[in-house]
């Protein structure tokens, strides 16, 4: 069916789909809603032991002695390991993180010893019986301080606390542009530690068989890379040429936390190796807070300028990132920050440099948005300030500078489809910018760009798929993708079902097991819909072609007259041959064939070059968020009255899941903006629980409206682009901008807590008193 239709102001051809674009329930929802779904928490193997890790008592210290005698003597304790007992396994791509520390600890989170016991409580007690003697060293917690020459070194052998990473670029001529600019802003912004707070805590089970093949059950977003990491650990243990199988149970949330392999996984492997029994390590909530890697704090200096008409001329940014004591992907977030910095709005001259700095804090990891939220907070706050300086309406300013389809940005990102102008329109219309309002109420907006077509960080950005069909027309899809709850299994099932003319219920997606699923680089960069979707689509297309050829042969009808839908072949609207019948015939016949196909899809994106130029993603997602806030000027509390999130998603393959990604992302973003903060006191996490780490509740939940702009991307599966992360990217600046609009104070440091808002009001009004002013007897804003 072909039908011309006006959409988003663009004329285009719209096909009629049977499952694409439909609000289809998640394929795993029934299991999850009935309690059948199994998470790592729910798994037990026969003979399984329980592992536990001893963490450091100091943020920076020499380890003098680790006394394990008492722990070993405790009945039920099977294995006790210290840094001296094990071969040198090192974690992370920078290999600066020994699995168990010997000689020195560099943060409170440092793993000093581990035990395996027959019961979790025995393991806990054993841990408390390990005596460690430390000799404390001076520690450093502030990344800017850590860069000073007199600062203590976190890794002596590294000679400096500055990580040797090349994060620096300069396109065009920023200095010359500064001379041309008529209006300029120059500001400092900062963001703080926040953490993923997956509701399901981290955990892993390691199990060796008699031939030393290893199976690891773990929560990971990167099964194939994890497999490789575990192989390396085996190699260091002297186990070669054995099979490593990674099985993912249901994951209770990812958000970037499971992008690397961690000490608990490798520790479970070592304990299982020495104990010769399966070992499970499962974090309690407190451990989840202190021993998983949060999003790192940043300090950002930004200056930006425009000409008389408000056209951006340059953007000049530098950043300091707290890497913590060791290195994981957190240290590579600048590579993604470069994208908004060089390419959010048209800006011809850009300079950026970032320093990742070792401190004695916990080590950082990427979290939903991979650095983009930190960068966008500074950019979009500064955009509002620049618009004000130029005397141009904030919405108009963004219109003037909006990216457009066909743009090539200074970094070399090739903008194909781009719905940013439409997103800005949708938000400004909905929130009625510029209308007169009551006191303390204001509106703000902010936009985003994000990778929407994979992100080439490794040599490969690919994903494999295998599809087989059985005699009854049911489809098994084996994908490399990882579903952490975001619903990629459902999207893949929809894509395959659409292509093969079957129902979503007919498709079973397997993603849990590296023994049966093909390779994939991992669930990051919102790449799964685009990359795994295209991979599945390619495999399904192969099958479709074969089915059509077979059906044509069986029916004698030309292939191009056959329509495959509703589990059958149709000719002129009439069903002529059920798929199942065709399939049964295909192998119950001499020289028969099985209906199977595989496909590996690697998107046409580019690794960044030396100067960081390169089209990192095959396409880009855009969006604009708008928010109306009310500020209680006596308490400083910010209430969100309305929220609208407009996203260019290419095509909404499943609007139901899409809405879910947006609503969830937005509330996470609101928490980032207003309440969430890992409170670090000299390297120690002071709020390792949900009482004091303030994830918003349903009573604080906002009514957010998700607007979908479809731009039907040429490269995307059925035109779709990625949308997993963008929901939380522009939230904080949109809120900060709205607060400024409401009460005229600009908060430049996240989170925007009530006390910061009050302090800012006080500063603005120059008031000294607070609460109730004793002289005027008026309720006063206070610090």
């Amino acid at each position, binding site marked *: 069916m072909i039908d011309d239709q006006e959409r988003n102001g663009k004329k285009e051809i719209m096909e009629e789909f049977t499952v694409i674009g439909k*609000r289809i*329930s*998640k394929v*795993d*929802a*029934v*299991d*999850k*809603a*009935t*309690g*059948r*779904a*199994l*998470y790592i*928490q*729910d798994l037990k193997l026969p003979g399984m032991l329980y592992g536990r890790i001893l963490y450091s008592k100091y943020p920076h210290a020499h380890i003098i002695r680790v006394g394990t005698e008492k722990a070993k003597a405790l009945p039920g304790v099977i294995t006790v390991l210290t840094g001296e007992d094990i071969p040198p396994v090192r974690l992370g791509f920078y290999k600066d993180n020994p699995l168990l520390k010997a000689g020195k600890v560099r943060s409170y989170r440092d793993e000093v010893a581990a035990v395996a016991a027959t019961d979790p409580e025995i393991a806990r007690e054993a841990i408390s019986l390990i005596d460690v003697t430390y000799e404390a060293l001076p520690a450093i917690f502030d990344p800017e301080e850590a860069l000073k020459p007199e600062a203590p070194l976190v890794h002596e052998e590294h000679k400096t606390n500055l990580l040797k990473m090349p994060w620096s670029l300069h396109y065009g001529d920023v200095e010359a542009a500064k001379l041309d600019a008529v209006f300029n802003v120059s500001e400092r912004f900062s963001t703080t530690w926040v953490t*993923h*707070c*997956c*509701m*399901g*805590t981290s955990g892993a089970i390691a199990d060796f068989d008699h031939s030393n093949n290893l199976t690891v059950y773990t929560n990971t977003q990167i099964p194939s890379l994890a497999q490789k990491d575990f192989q390396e650990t085996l190699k260091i243990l002297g186990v070669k040429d054995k099979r490593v199988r990674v099985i993912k149970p*249901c*994951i*209770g*949330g*990812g*958000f970037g936390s499971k992008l690397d392999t961690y000490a608990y996984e490798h520790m479970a492997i070592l304990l299982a190796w020495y104990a010769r029994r399966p070992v499970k390590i499962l974090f*309690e*909530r407190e451990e989840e807070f202190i021993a998983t890697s949060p999003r790192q704090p940043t300090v950002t200096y930004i200056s930006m300028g425009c000409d008389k008409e408000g056209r951006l001329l340059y953007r000049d940014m530098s950043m300091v990132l707290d890497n913590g004591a060791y290195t994981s992907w957190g240290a590579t977030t600048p590579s993604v920050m470069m994208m908004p910095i060089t390419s959010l709005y048209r800006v011809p001259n850009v300079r950026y440099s970032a320093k990742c700095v070792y401190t004695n804090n916990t080590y950082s990891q990427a979290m939903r948005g991979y650095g983009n939220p930190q960068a966008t907070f500074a950019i979009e706050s500064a955009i509002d300030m620049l618009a004000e300086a130029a005397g141009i309406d904030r919405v108009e300013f963004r219109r003037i500078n909006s990216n457009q389809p066909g743009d090539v940005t200074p970094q070399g990102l090739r903008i194909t489809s781009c719905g940013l102008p439409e997103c800005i329109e949708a938000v400004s219309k909905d929130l009625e910018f510029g209308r007169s309002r009551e006191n303390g109420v204001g509106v703000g907006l902010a936009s985003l760009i994000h990778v929407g077509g994979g992100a080439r960080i490794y040599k490969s950005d690919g994903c494999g798929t295998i599809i087989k069909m059985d005699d009854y027309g049911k489809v098994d899809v084996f994908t490399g993708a990882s579903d*952490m*709850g*975001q*619903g990629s299994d459902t999207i893949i099932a929809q894509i395959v079902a659409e292509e093969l003319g079957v129902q979503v219920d007919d498709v079973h997606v397997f993603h849990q097991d590296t023994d049966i699923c093909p390779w994939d680089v991992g669930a990051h960069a919102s790449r799964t819909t685009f990359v795994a979707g295209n991979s599945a689509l390619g495999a399904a297309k192969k099958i479709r072609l074969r089915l059509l050829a077979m059906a044509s042969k069986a029916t004698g009808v030309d292939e191009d007259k056959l329509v495959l839908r509703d589990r059958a072949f149709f000719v002129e609207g009439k069903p002529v041959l059920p798929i199942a019948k065709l399939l049964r015939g295909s192998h119950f016949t001499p020289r028969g064939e099985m209906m199977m196909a595989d496909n590996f899809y690697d998107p046409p994106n580019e690794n960044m070059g030396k100067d960081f130029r390169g089209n990192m993603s095959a396409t880009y997602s855009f969006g604009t968020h708008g928010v109306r806030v009310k500020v209680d000027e006596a308490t400083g509390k910010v209430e969100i009255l309305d929220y609208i999130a407009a996203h260019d998603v290419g095509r909404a393959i499943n609007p*139901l*899941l899409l*809405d*879910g990604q947006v*609503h*969830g*992302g*937005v*509330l*996470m973003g609101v928490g980032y903006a207003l309440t969430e903060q890992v409170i670090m006191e000299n390297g120690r996490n002071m709020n390792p*629980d*949900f*009482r004091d780490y303030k*994830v918003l*509740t*349903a*009573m604080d*939940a*906002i*009514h*957010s409206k998700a607007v979908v702009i479809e731009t039907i991307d040429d490269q995307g599966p059925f035109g779709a682009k990625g949308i997993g992360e963008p929901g939380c990217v522009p939230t904080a600046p949109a809120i900060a901008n709205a607060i400024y609009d409401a009460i005229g104070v600009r908060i430049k440091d996240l989170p925007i807590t009530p006390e910061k808002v009050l302090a800012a009001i006080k500063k603005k009004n120059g008031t000294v008193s607070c609460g109730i002013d004793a002289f005027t007897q008026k309720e006063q804003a206070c610090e």
Partner: protein
Amino acid sequence: MNKQPLEISINGDCYSLAVEPNRTLLELLREDLDLTGAKEGCGEGVCGGCTVLMDGKPVRSCLTLALEASGTHITTVEGLAQKGELDPLQQSFIEHGAVQCGFCTSGMLMAAKGLALNNPHAGNKEIRNAISGHICRCTGYTKIIEAVEAVVDRSLEKR
């Protein structure tokens, strides 16, 4: 420590058990009876993952001694569906996209069920209040609230 007798009905099945006084209801369900639908997300009452119905009222099983549940009727997420028919709330959660990673889902369902039993005409604010002791990191709550609203609406239609 000495075990004490416990008579309890769980999802309509009666159990005569002997449990240690320091066993929580959550441990009894998950570890002794393999009813792993209730989840431990914090163990200290904050997250809501372990919520079950005790005599129709939502309570934290991580902060309830198994022995304190003696003589009561416990409903867990496994007991919501009746004779293979999903509970309308389960159906609605599934249809409305209220389930993402699913870790909070059983607790959310039990809180919602408690509300539906005690106040079948709850409005938006009452629904949000009823699930306000449950943290969900994935959904932003929007779809969960919509899912409960839809069931409450339906029960209104029936009248």
